[in-house]
């Protein structure tokens, strides 16, 4: 087990656990703006996971799309429609 390999495991552990927590919060949140912020957090965590999986190309594309464009797109949709999810 080299140093790099251990580090990779630590990073994947942190990133995927964060992603799990954020996805759960996105699922249960009724306020859609909060859900969008949680999903942005999930995107940051996945960006770290892509780095740990040695895919800088994907990290570039995914961070631009996941953190920036997805959240902006969803907020635009909320601004045209409604903010709270019904029970």
């Amino acid at each position, binding site marked *: 087990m080299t140093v790099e390999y251990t580090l990779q495991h630590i990073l994947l552990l942190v990133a995927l656990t964060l992603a799990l927590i954020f996805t759960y919060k996105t699922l249960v949140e009724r306020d859609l703006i909060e859900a969008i912020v949680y999903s942005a957090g999930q995107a940051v965590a996945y960006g770290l996971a892509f780095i740990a999986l040695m895919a*800088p*190309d994907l*990290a*570039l*594309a995914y961070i*631009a*799309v996941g953190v*920036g*464009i997805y959240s*902006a*797109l969803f907020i*635009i949709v909320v601004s*045209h429609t409604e903010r709270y999810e019904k029970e």
Partner: protein
Amino acid sequence: MVKLKDVCIGLSLAVVAAIVSYLIISYNIASVAPEANRPLANMFLENVFNSEKWWLWAGSPEAVTSILWDYRGIDTVYETAVFFLAIIASIALVRTLKLTPETSGRGFGLTVIAKTVTNIVFASIPIVAYSIAVHGHLTPGGGFQGGSAFAVAPLLAISVFSLRVIVMRGWSKDRLLALRTTGLLLIGLIAIIVVALSALKGIIAYVMQNQPKPWAPAGLSAIVDFINPTLISGTLFWLNISEFLAVGAGLSLVFVLLVSPTKMLDVEVEEK
């Protein structure tokens, strides 16, 4: 307040996930796959920049971009077509929408501090995206990455300066459509330019061919003589730039349409 139903669903999800991952691990499907599982990856990695095997190389140290635009080039052209279909479908939903400075909101924007800093950032994002795109065959990056990075610039400008300012600066639907179509046409042109040139000489060549092969000795050269020997990897460089244009302009177009004021969209709905 935890309901029984939620607990049941959560538990069953966890159990199924555990079983599936146990199966994946115990049958050696993914995590600890042996070397025998990746001859294709080794082939790509060994030959992508190997000038000794010039009939297999792509002339680029970046395996991802070379596979994207050379080994699987036609596939990527079709993927780009899918991308444009999705964008055209989005535009078709609001096809009668006409954005003029009068109809595009009141133009408030945010505070002067945000506007000044966003001026700098708005000018810098395109140059960073451009850098990502033109170095696509040398370092991680490429047309798709650069294009999606560029699309953030109009998004930022729309929220900070307001849509009205953007429309007054000339970001009209027609211009962005023209830019996007130019990118697409350039991809098509580069795809057939090698075939066209070699047809004039009477040599066989493939569509999307990058480097020459023994049975099809046509193709753009990977290293050109520009002051120093400069690596531009044949068609990869040009394809990256055109994809950058196409993706960036296409996404900008959709976002400019998407933030158009709510009452404009209402008119759209009533006309249907």
